[in-house]
C-alpha cells in the first residue's frame, strides 16, 4: 500500500543527505551560493527547483545556452520610512549563479515558472540524448 507519510519521510531524508551526484560536481558554480538549487529527475527530463523568496519576477533573469542555465537578479528588502525596527532577519542583495547539467538539453524549450517565491525550471532532454532501447536480432 502506498503510504504518503512514508513517502514524504523518505523524500525529506533524500533531501537531507545533500545529494552530491558525481555528474553535477563542479558543474554548478559554488555550492552554497544563493539561490539554493535542488535538481530532480522526472521521467527523461530534469526539473530544477530554486528558492527565491521575495524576489520580484521583473528582477529575475534566466538565460540558457547549450547545457548551461544562468539565474541572476536581485532581492530588495525595504521598509517604510519612520519605523522602528524590532527584528531584522531577511537579507537583500544581488545574485548570479549558473547551473550546468551533464546531459544534452533543449535550451529553447526550457520552461520557467515562478510562484510563491519558488522558481521551477523544466529542462527537457533533447530527443537525440534520450536513451532508446535496442532490439536484439
Amino acid at each position: 500500500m502506498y503510504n504518503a507519510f512514508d513517502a514524504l519521510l523518505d523524500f525529506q531524508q533524500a533531501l537531507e543527505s545533500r545529494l552530491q551526484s558525481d555528474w553535477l560536481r563542479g558543474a554548478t558554480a559554488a555550492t552554497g551560493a544563493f539561490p539554493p538549487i535542488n535538481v530532480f529527475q522526472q521521467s527523461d527530463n530534469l526539473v530544477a527547483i530554486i528558492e527565491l523568496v521575495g524576489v520580484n519576477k521583473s528582477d529575475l533573469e534566466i538565460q540558457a545556452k547549450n547545457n548551461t542555465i544562468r539565474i541572476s537578479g536581485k532581492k530588495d528588502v525595504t521598509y517604510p520610512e519612520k519605523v522602528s525596527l524590532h527584528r531584522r532577519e531577511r537579507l537583500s542583495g544581488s545574485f548570479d549563479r549558473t547551473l550546468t547539467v551533464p546531459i544534452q538539453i533543449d535550451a529553447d524549450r526550457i520552461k520557467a515558472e515562478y510562484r510563491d517565491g519558488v522558481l521551477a525550471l523544466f529542462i527537457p532532454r533533447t530527443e537525440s540524448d534520450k536513451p532508446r532501447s535496442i532490439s536484439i536480432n
Partner: protein
Amino acid sequence: MSPQELQVQQKRELEKKQESTVPARVFVPTTDIFETEEALSLIVEMPGVDRAKVDVSVEDGVLTIQGHLDFSKYEGMQPVYTEYNIGHYRRSFSLSNTVDQGRISAEMKDGVLTLVLPKAEEAKPRRISVS
C-alpha cells in the same frame, strides 16, 4: 556601487514542545518586525507556501503563523542533486495587548507574508498639550 551579494540563509528547524504525529519537517520562517505609530508589521518568508495554506491565529495573546507546504507537487520527482530541504513553517510571537486583534490584515506575495497589526486606540501615542 554594486549591491551586496546575497547569501544563503540556512533554514532553522522548529524546536517542538510536543512530538508531531506527521514526520514532516517544520522550519522557523525568516521574519522582520517593525513598528510605526499606527501598527506593528511582520514580514514572514515562507517559500513555496500557497496563500490558501497560510494560517494566522491569535490566542491568549500569542500570534501564531503557520504555512503548509504542498508536497504533492514533488510527486514522481527523483532528487539527483540537493542543496536545501523543504517543509512546513511555524512561528509564534507573544503580543502586547496594544494590538487591535480584530483588525489584523494579511497579504501574501512571492512567498512573503505581510501582516499588519493595527494598534488599539488607547495604545497609540497621543500628544498632550501643555496649557
